[in-house]
């Protein structure tokens, strides 16, 4: 995620929203949940825009809020499914579809989040550290482990130096 000038919320929002949404979709596989969490995160961002815009990483903060909202709603959904199994939604196809996405979803939780934030949300390592609430060094080692697992999936023209 390339940060744009954050003086204007509209411009920043238009730039950020698709990738935040797509990262949540990649992590949850549920389009409604991803859209819901994305909108909630950006609503909170605009509510506190004066504070958020001067943060070190407005994108990282918003992504972190979005991840937290997503986790809470997933937890609630699992809880409801346990309590009300008959009312739980039927299985649906995870989105986005495809072998590569399946490989990403098969990663351990932390690696999966790091990879999605790095390649889907397009966050830099410092921003990922803010979004995940972990040290930057941990982000680098987590991504390295994920790259090792995914191998060719992450092989490409820019791989030699994709650490920004």
């Amino acid at each position, binding site marked *: 995620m390339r940060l744009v000038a954050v003086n204007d919320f509209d411009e920043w929002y238009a730039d950020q929203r698709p990738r935040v949404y797509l990262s949540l979709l990649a992590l949850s596989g549920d389009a409604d949940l991803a859209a819901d969490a994305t*909108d909630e995160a950006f609503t909170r961002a605009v509510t506190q825009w004066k504070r958020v815009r001067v943060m070190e990483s407005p994108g990282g903060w918003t992504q972190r809020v979005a991840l937290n909202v997503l986790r809470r709603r997933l937890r609630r959904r699992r809880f409801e499914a346990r309590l009300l199994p008959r009312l739980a939604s039927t299985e649906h196809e995870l989105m986005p579809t495809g072998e590569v996405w399946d490989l990403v979803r098969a990663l351990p939780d932390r690696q999966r989040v790091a990879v999605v934030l790095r390649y889907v949300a397009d966050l830099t390592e410092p921003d990922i550290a803010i979004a995940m609430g972990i040290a930057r060094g941990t982000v680098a080692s987590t991504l390295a482990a994920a790259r090792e697992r995914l191998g060719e999936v992450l092989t490409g023209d820019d791989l030699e130096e994709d650490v920004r």
Partner: protein
Amino acid sequence: MNVLERLVTEELTRVPTGPSAGDLRRRARVRRARRVGAVATVAVVFAVLAIAAMLQSPGSHQVRVVEPAPMTSTTGGPIAVTPLPLATTKEFPPLAKIIASLTGTVRSNTDPKAVVENPTSAEIVATTDTKAYAIWGGTHDDKPIYVAQVTGSFVCDTCPRPEGASSPHGVALTVWFGTDGHTGGLGLAQRPTDLSQLGTVYRLELTPLATTEQFPALASMAEIVSNNVRTDYRAQPGSTRPTSGEIVETTRGRAFSLFGGSTDNLDAHIYVIEVFGNFTCDECSRPSNAVAAPQGNSLHLLFDATGRGYGFGIGEPIDLSTLGTVYRVELPG
């Protein structure tokens, strides 16, 4: 660009349009309005509860004051108008020590069931133990002593008594002092003694009147206390309402030992005002299974340094001299 990034680029083209920035702002405005409304509601509820529970809510505290104890001087008239000269250190060198000791004795022996206002003045005379012997007995070595007498309603739970007898009580408390100010003894009588038979009688101010120099917010604090007593006063036949109280400047930390409460800012200066009577607080909070409303013989009101009331209590009289120098505060009518 690696495989995953290429896929992401493809997927980004399929991302559905979300709400506009304007929609998000509207949503944020609604939330802010709801939050302000919620905060305002909570503030109003707390304010109502605080007012009802504390200081200025008419009808919130039902106060009953018992018939006052007789307050007569040795000449039979009210102590407040007794034309006696004021005692000074010239006649009574250890005056401060005598006042402190007498005040503590009075407070610890005042009958909590009958007191409406703690006595604020006393009579004192310089005499000898031989002269005093003729009235009360004791030693008669011609030793110079001071004798102070306070009228009110007193009960001495710690005084010696025959087994099975109730605590000695009386309307006149007499205390003997040595010339160094140390207490030599005390006695309770059913009627005051005419001290003039022992020497020249002087008036002793037990609790000097508080001034605005010492207590800048005195007027507003007295007004609050007066409102609290007056508006919630449930008059009984022959009863009188307390017209004065006691005030002391202290710290939150020192008051904490008596009243409990928050442990924040223990060094902060506060004021405590106490009035005496027989009070019942029908509207005060109480345990859900409590049958009777909280009641007691004194009200304690706590004020911060600006004179804003922040605490209220009802219970048995407390010796405010443990918190600092006590002054008398007149309550507006």
